[in-house]
């Protein structure tokens, strides 16, 4: 199930309307709509937690580890970081699509790339301070 589908199911299980849920979480009802349509996901972990609490479900039942990684990236570095992280993860996933490699390797590689991403970002920032960016 996608996040959108999980959200919808959890909301229906709790017998809440989109407007009611929106109120509980503290967002506009359109936000709930967008989430359930699959156009968007919560932009940060705080919001995800609030959503999960309002639905009385654990946060990781709604979002996968990978989603949370992307969310955290967004929190730390803004939408660009979230996009970059998503692209990196897609790349790794593509690598494993052939079925040649072990699944545990995928998780470990994603974790490594996540770490690498922030190292790269820090390096870039240092260079930017010195007046010359790498990219």
């Amino acid at each position, binding site marked *: 199930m996608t996040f959108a589908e999980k959200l919808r199911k959890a909301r229906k299980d709790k017998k809440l309307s989109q407007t009611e849920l929106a109120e509980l979480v503290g967002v506009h009802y359109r936000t709930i709509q967008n989430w359930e349509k699959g156009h968007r996901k919560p932009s940060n972990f705080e919001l995800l937690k609030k959503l999960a609490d309002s639905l009385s479900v654990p946060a990781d039942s709604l979002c996968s580890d990978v989603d949370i990684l992307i969310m955290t990236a967004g929190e730390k570095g803004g939408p660009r970081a979230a996009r*970059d992280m998503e692209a*990196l993860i897609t*790349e*790794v996933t*593509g*690598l494993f*699509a*052939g079925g*040649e*490699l*072990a699944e*545990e*390797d995928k998780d*470990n*590689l994603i*974790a*490594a*790339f996540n*770490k*690498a*991403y922030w*190292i*790269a*970002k820090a*390096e*870039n920032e240092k260079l930017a301070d010195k007046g010359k*960016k*790498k*990219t």
Partner: protein
Amino acid sequence: MDLYFKKIGDAANALIKKFSSRNPFDIAAGLGIHIMFVPLSRLKGVYKVINGSSFIILNQNNGEKLNKIVCAHELGHHVLHRELAKDGMISESVIYDMSRQRELEANLFACQLLLDDETVAEHIKEGFDIEKIAKLTETDPNLIALKCSFLVNQGYDFIPQEYNTVFLK
């Protein structure tokens, strides 16, 4: 093929000279490449450029000897294929998106970096086979076979050996 060998050989020699070392870890550090050890099973290594910073990921289960070779190989990708790695990572032991040409080039680089001509030539003259030379130099038979091709190309009178161009698969 001549220019090819020469270009790759020159690149390796330039780095050996610059850092006074054949050790791929020393050279990587000197070039500002980040090295990460990750527990993996089949995947031997990955090279990737992220936002201008270069990363070599090595399988910590490879063991020291293999990791030296994989590191040298990935360094080859860095020196020769950096542009390509910005769009997609380059990984070893995967059929996905692997170009034989690129792998051969990285292996040629690794063998030039890790093995010095005279030592290997001497071993060959002594009559050792590539398995034995691989043991003596603490490398891999395929690397030795590649080195033979280099040496033959340079005018040594040896018989070119069979090798597996994608042995790091």
